[in-house]
């Protein structure tokens, strides 16, 4: 890839051949407003918000237009500004004005773009307002779909296709009636959706949003505890509860992708049935006991059953350090190599 130099609004920036104008801008920390672009996906060029003027004559969309040596790009040309602002106004005229209670308030791409193109309060009533009234799809336990907030950027469709290759959803119908839907517009839960939530995390508005979401106060990097793939995650913590899981985009294993269990299967951590105290069998019943009592009993019994009378089953679920100590305990303290685990199951 050959390096090239292009000019955006008078600023010369380095880029690589093969990049789009938008990629070059983003690589240099420049914001060009856009709604349907996502770095993980092929550019679609549908929202038309990223329009720029090239070499003072051609209107083009920066998400698809490749850079060329010496190219002069304007993002503030009057025609560009007008097309872009009108486009955003059209979207806003068809979008609910419920920002304050919206899941994505403050983190919404439509808000960001609207502010950037300079929407004034008077602009909000310039166009005829009409917001879709389609029922919310709440059939999935983990996320819900609000068609009224959908801007038809298609990021969810492309995610389900390009990344997940599941194709549970697609653009259905045509024209103004277009929407994102499943076969026959059935509830998402009746489709082949695998609830991975990859579309939800990429949705620029709250058309797709997690259900019962609680904002975390902090995040902790860790590794998913389900299968052997070992996806990087960020655990969202609020108080002493885990309130969410995000994919860790920096992790080379998953690059941020997660499956349904990894993303949504964390509620067991806070589950009321968690064991919170040791239990000891007394008169045939397991009853709560203090640690000392339980540990003393174990130490006593294990001391009686050293060597071939003892066996340990470690676990593929616990950490290396846990496993190391269990085998060390079995071998060094109990004097036997009879330690195994469910590697074979």
């Amino acid at each position, binding site marked *: 890839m050959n390096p090239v130099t292009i000019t955006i609004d008078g600023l010369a920036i380095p880029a690589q051949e093969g990049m789009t104008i938008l990629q070059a801008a983003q690589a240099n920390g420049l914001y060009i407003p856009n709604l349907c672009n996502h770095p993980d996906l092929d550019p679609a060029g549908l929202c038309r918000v990223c329009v720029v003027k090239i070499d003072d004559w051609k209107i083009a*969309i920066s998400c698809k237009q490749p850079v060329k040596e010496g190219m002069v790009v304007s993002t503030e040309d009057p025609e560009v500004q007008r097309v872009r602002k*009108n486009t955003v106004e059209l979207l806003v005229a068809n979008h609910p004005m419920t920002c304050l209670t919206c899941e994505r308030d403050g983190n919404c791409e439509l808000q960001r773009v609207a502010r950037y193109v300079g929407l004034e309060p008077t602009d909000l009533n310039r166009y005829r307002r009409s917001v879709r009234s389609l029922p919310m799809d709440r059939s999935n336990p983990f996320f819900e779909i609000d068609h009224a907030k959908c801007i*038809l950027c298609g990021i969810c469709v492309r995610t389900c296709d390009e990344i997940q290759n599941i194709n549970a959803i697609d653009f259905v119908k045509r024209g103004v009636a277009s929407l994102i839907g499943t076969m026959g517009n059935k509830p998402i839960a009746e489709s082949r959706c695998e609830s991975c939530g990859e579309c939800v995390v990429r949705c620029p508005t709250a058309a797709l949003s997690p259900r019962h979401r609680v904002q975390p106060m902090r995040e902790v990097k860790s590794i998913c505890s389900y299968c052997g793939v070992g996806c990087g995650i960020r655990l969202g913590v609020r108080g002493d509860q885990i309130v969410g899981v995000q994919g860790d985009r920096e992790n080379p294993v998953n690059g941020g992708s997660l499956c349904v269990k990894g993303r949504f299967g964390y509620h067991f951590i806070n589950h009321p049935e968690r064991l919170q105290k040791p239990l000891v069998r007394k008169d045939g019943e397991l009853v709560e006991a203090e640690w000392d009592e339980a540990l003393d009993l174990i130490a006593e019994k294990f001391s009686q059953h050293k060597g071939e009378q003892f066996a340990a089953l470690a676990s593929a679920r616990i950490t290396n350090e846990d496993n190391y100590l269990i085998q060390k305990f079995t071998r060094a303290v109990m004097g036997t190599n009879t330690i195994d685990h469910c590697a074979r199951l």
Partner: protein
Amino acid sequence: MNAINTPADLGPMRDYCQAALGRQKVRFLVCAGTGCIAGGSMAVYQELQRLLSERDINVDVELLYEGKESDAGVGTSGCHGFCQMGPLVRVEPTGTFYTRVKAADVPDIITATLDENSEVERLLFKNPDGSRSVTEHDVPFYNRQQRIVLDKCGTINPEDIRDYFAVDGYQALAEILQHLSPMEVIDIVTASGLRGRGGAGFPAGRKWLGCHKAGGSPKYVVCNGDEGDPGAFMDRSVLEGNPLAVIEGMTIAAYSVGARYGYIYVRAEYPLAVVRLQKAIEQAKQYRLLGENIMGVDFDFDLYIFQGAGAFVCGESTALTLSIEGKRGMPRVAPRPRTTEVGLWDKPTLLNNVKTYAFIPDIIRRGADWFKSIGTESSSGTAVFALTGHIANSGLIEVPMGITLREIIYDIGGGIPHGGTFKAVQTGGPSGGCLPASLLDTPIDYDSLDEAGSIMGSGGMVIMDENTCMVDVARYFLQFTEEESCGQCVPCRLGTKQLLEILKDICKGKGRKADLDLLYELSHSVHGGSVCGLGQTAANPVLTTLRYFKDEYEAHIFEKRCPAKVCKDLISFRIDEEKCAGCTLCARACPVSAITGEKKQVHVIDQSICIQCGVCKEKCPTKFSAVECVSPKLVMEVA
């Protein structure tokens, strides 16, 4: 003879077919175009057959080919173009041209033709001056036309390839297979100045050259017969009337660009065209004119029909190819490679309109210079229009480029009927515009129409009289584009919706002062921001009506008045007390019982019930003409 095994077989084949057809002294050709069929032409056809059989002279075409002589026979032809006057019957070889023929007229026609050597006067076309025209050539509708593509539509049986052979069919293909290289063919097409007849007018030769040069295999030749413009049926008539000319043109194109396969994309709304094409392809295959080793030479080309499934946007080339691939017909987003390089199944694809291909055999046979001599410098050849609306003679016409709108409307079309006044002519369908009387002398060519704010388009030409509301027309087209927008890009999906909402409001008398500026601004943004041609031109009907009929918008917005008295929310019907004779016709016809009045008493319309359907005005006998339509709306009297 039942196959063309070398190009040299074509000459003898033509002579053989001409000889066979020549054995029939008189031939009654019944128009079997969709319009005439709707008018009952098949009953006429059957009656002709029945009566000729009774006379024992109805000889089957096959027997002619076996050498039998015949006094008379009956055949079907494609559309003659003059659908309004259908069903049409033409008598060969005299060319006698009968209009509005009913089955009951058949005995008279037979008697006049076979027994009396005369004509049935009452069925001949009646000129405005009261005289009668015997042949098509005498009819003003026809005699100002110059027919190339439509020439054979009304004279040959589109379901018999031998009829096509008889009129020099496939001579052009034989010629190029024997004597011309693909590049030489492309040079002829380029030299002819032929521009794509789909609407945009891209030079055909350049497109062919691009596809010829493109790398990749196999290549495809695609015929765009997705004639989606409302008010246009040129392609339909060509496909129904002379399908083999299109097929021969495509085969020549395939040879020139090196294509192995071809598709004809036909609207599903055109079932007859599909049937005729199927038969034509079947026969072409039988005669070795499609398939492997066409005419025995090293050239293979297979042709398939694809039936569109009802989406206007599929007229756009990339949407059309995606549709054939079984996808949603959403135009590809630029920057993208040309269809000639990356088209159907991502292979080089030549895509032209039905008429573009239909011109090709004639251009090859008669030469580039002949074609270039017709029309204007920049737009050579003829243009085919579907002339409809408020026009005396409506139908399909073919005229040399450069002819003026006035000539078409008044000389060919016979002007506005019922003493009406011309208000506007709409060309180019939803992507085109409405031109006013002041532009009637505009010559018809790609560039002049463009300059006037409209486009040539594929050939729809709708004439509008003074009873047409131009705001309503703009609303009508925006309704169409809104429904037909593929919906993928924001400016087109929501921009057409917004334009439509504003226009609807204006038609309802809810227009705002700022709306005119808003329409301008939004129209330009939809033009600048949309992905494809459909979106980019969607606002043209708004822009041209704003440009030429701004006063009508202003009347709607500021006076709440619809000058043409079309917009229901701005009109009222009332009964003139002076004129009403109390005949009760209106009251009985009123679907909502809004009219009261005793027999022989003056009738009154209750404005609170009236739905402005206009039936009362329709029903009121002309001698009274008591019902009148007024705008703005009558202020309702509170009872």
